[in-house]
């Protein structure tokens, strides 16, 4: 334990500091700072130092101010049980304390896992290319719109999103395209999914990009993907599908419905609920290879002829192409991608399909149970659901949600009389208690 009174993580003993100062011919460390007096900071931040023990206690105490509530929340951020080995492996020093793999000869381990992650997404989407992460679903969607701008031959300025897209995502897309003379518009949805007639009317030759989700933000499985894809194709617009690795394990393959790009939050595998911290899934058709944003890991050979992995096509990236890069992204979500890859590998193909099927059955069952509660009707939307559904409450929904929270359950109030409820393997054991709470308060 060195560094008393200074950084606990600087190993210098006083003797060593003196020796090093002598070596650089300085009397004091301050002599090494070439900062004009006029901008020198001579005050203190007013931040007290703490021991590790004190810091742990204090921060843990702060976090403990969060109420212990069972979450039936979804709408773009989901909780599945994360097996322990994901923590064990991802916390290994060699993974978590490494940097971007600019020296592939000594970072084959991480590169190979990222290659596994890309391969997982390629299999799930049927598209040929997946990058090794964007920040989250919202920024991945925004990057997809920008990709459309780069790859589309003809002009086109309209970015179309379904009207039930979370407003936060719409805002992110608007910000990302704001420098590119694109406009973001929403098109009508119905019954939780795309209103195909309305979309048909909305799409024109100025349409650059059509986005749809499967399942939708309201948890409904989209049944018109082929038609949406064809519609976009007819107008030479990119068809971007929003989904996630669990849903993609069961639902129609994006490539089969004409999707050009797939985005979403891949952290539904690998991470517990993390207040929205995600993993931007980004996969696309091979044609767009040179225009893909973000990092790509490729297979190659080393000088001994052995299989080896490396970051590749880096000339697309900011550190080389600067203002002509395909994106400004540098630090991404690599470690989350590693966790996602491990979680998916732990489930295996059979486990993924089983988990996804459970996500079809659980909302079906819970909706039926809630439908039996006086004052509740569920699901509001027709069709098949995935993880979540909207329920109607005779009482005002915000009041019901508040009462449920007082009982220890969190649900979304999404309308005056609409709640949205999300059920997965993570909160499933609490279903009986939730139903009982509904009976109490609804």
């Amino acid at each position, binding site marked *: 334990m060195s560094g008393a009174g200074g950084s606990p993580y600087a190993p210098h003993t006083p003797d060593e500091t003196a020796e090093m100062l002598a070596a650089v011919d300085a009397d004091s460390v301050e002599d090494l700072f070439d900062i004009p007096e006029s901008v020198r900071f001579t005050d203190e931040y007013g931040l007290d130092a703490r021991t590790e023990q004190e810091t742990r206690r204090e921060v843990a105490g702060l976090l403990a101010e*969060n109420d212990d509530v069972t979450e039936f929340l979804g709408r773009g951020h989901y909780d599945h049980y994360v097996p322990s080995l994901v923590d064990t492996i991802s916390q290994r020093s060699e993974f978590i304390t490494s940097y971007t793999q600019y020296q592939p000869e000594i970072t084959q381990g991480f590169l190979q896992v990222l290659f596994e992650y890309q391969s997982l997404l390629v299999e799930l989407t049927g598209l040929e290319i997946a990058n090794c992460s964007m920040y989250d679903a919202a920024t991945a969607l925004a990057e997809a719109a920008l990709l459309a701008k780069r790859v589309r031959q003809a002009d086109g300025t309209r970015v179309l999103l379904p009207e039930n897209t979370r407003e936060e995502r719409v805002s992110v897309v608007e910000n990302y395209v704001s420098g590119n003379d694109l406009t973001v518009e929403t098109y009508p949805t119905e019954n939780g999914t795309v209103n195909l007639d309305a979309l048909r009317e909305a799409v024109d030759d100025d349409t650059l990009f059509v986005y749809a989700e499967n399942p939708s933000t309201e948890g409904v499985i989209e049944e018109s993907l082929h038609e949406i894809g064809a519609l976009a194709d007819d107008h030479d617009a990119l068809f971007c599908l929003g989904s996630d690795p669990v849903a993609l394990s069961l639902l129609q393959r994006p490539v089969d419905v004409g999707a050009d790009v797939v985005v979403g939050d891949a952290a539904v595998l690998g991470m517990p609920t993390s207040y929205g911290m995600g993993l931007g899934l980004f996969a696309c058709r091979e044609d767009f290879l040179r225009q893909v944003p973000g990092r790509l890991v490729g297979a190659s050979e080393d000088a001994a002829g052995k299989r080896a992995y490396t970051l590749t096509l880096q000339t697309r990236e900011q550190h080389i192409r600067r203002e002509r890069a395909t994106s*400004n992204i540098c630090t991404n979500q690599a470690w989350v991608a590693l966790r996602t890859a491990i979680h998916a590998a732990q489930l295996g193909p059979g486990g993924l399909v089983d988990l996804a099927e459970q996500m079809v059955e659980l909302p079906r069952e819970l909706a039926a149970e809630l439908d039996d509660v006086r004052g509740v009707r569920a699901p509001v939307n027709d069709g098949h659901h995935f993880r979540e559904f909207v329920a109607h409450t005779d009482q005002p929904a915000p009041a019901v949600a508040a009462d449920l929270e007082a009982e220890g359950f969190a649900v979304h109030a999404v309308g005056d009389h609409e709640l949205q409820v999300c059920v997965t393997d993570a909160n499933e054991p609490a279903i009986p208690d939730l139903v009982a709470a509904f009976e109490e308060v609804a």
Partner: protein
Amino acid sequence: EYEPLLSEKSTEEVEVESSLPDDLTRDSLELPDLSEPELVRHYVRLSQQNYGVDTGPYPLGSCTMKYNPKFTEDLAARPEAAVHPDRSEESVQGTLGLLHGLQEQLKKIGGMDAVTLQPPAGAAGEFAGILLAKAYHESRGEGAQRDEIVIPDSAHGTNFASAALGGYDVVELPSADDGRVDLDALEAAVGENTAALMLTNPNTLGLFERDIEEIADVVHDAGGLLYYDGANLNALLGRARPGDMGFDIMHFNVHKTFATPHGGGGPGAGPVGVTDDLAEFLPNPQVRETDAGFEFFEPDSSIGKVHGFYGNWLVLVKAYAYIARLGDDGLGDAAAKAVLNANYLAEQVEYDVPFEPFHHEFVASAGDQDAADVAKRMLDYAVHPPTTKWPEIVSEALMTEPTEVESKRTLDQLAAAFNAVADESTETIESAPERTTARRIDQTEAARNPRLSWHALDN
């Protein structure tokens, strides 16, 4: 020699059976199907083929590869931290309290009036800053007019890309002979079209922009804003604050300055600080403290969102804990030792270092040698090499940032590696590395024939 257990060879195809109608589901899924014991061995063996800060020195210039305290991981893994972003504000007072606390810490460290924690990475922070500058100018009716961002040629690539993403034209500013901003060139470059100057200070050569006050005056006089790229903030902790130098907007790289782990390339976080003039434009939402507790609010003229939720929450937890642990004394000492280490190491290294006085990093020149080859050869000495061939102002640049966590002994080992390579022949360094798990990897082949998934390997 590890033959990966998990690979394109270990896939199994399963038929998909579902209660859903057939036309809503896929037919099959083909992925590796290994047992947990096999998986654990696979990943343990892979990890052993990966270099990290915990295995050795990592002096990548501009990357600030510090030791990552382990206790911050424990805190981020606490079940109380695992909350959904749509929880009611009342029920996540701990989360909001921590976010508010980090905002306050960063305000003090940056000398800024307000901070947003939403940007999920440094480049995302830059982009948020660009959007803030744009909103500011638009609010003054100068949005269309101010369509240029001025950036020194030695700046990080993200600066250029972020400006471009914001729709700006980039005006590149050549460095002066001393490696710093050329005031005359700056005067010439800025004007009524200037939205902002983006500046790293100390710059990527490790040099403090001594004329920072004049620079600020020039930019401000022209009606532009001054943006601080926080990549090199580690050098200034306890000694100077961007806000005091005249910067209007800045981002922090918590994975650099505040030791949240790089995780193989992320996640990081790129909080952005601004002066009062710009606070009204900050992303939605901000956190504030009231008598009733912490709450979100939307700034009056918010630019909206730059992340779907609240940024990389778990990374922010680690940053908060790191700052709380170090406090004034620790942070100030971190900068002191980082600068001492860079100076000491440079002194031991035989390669020429053309620009000084540098701070937390220095850029040596490999001279007649190819810097990339030098780096490959350094791998054979079991250390991570510096950043190479950048900034271009130094030929065959070896951009070296040891950070404060390296001991004198380790610095001596690093210097020995530099110096051993300096004496070696072109043939030797061109054929390096020889002692690593993988030998030199063919980048050209990887790019010419991209194979980006198992599916591509099957063919």
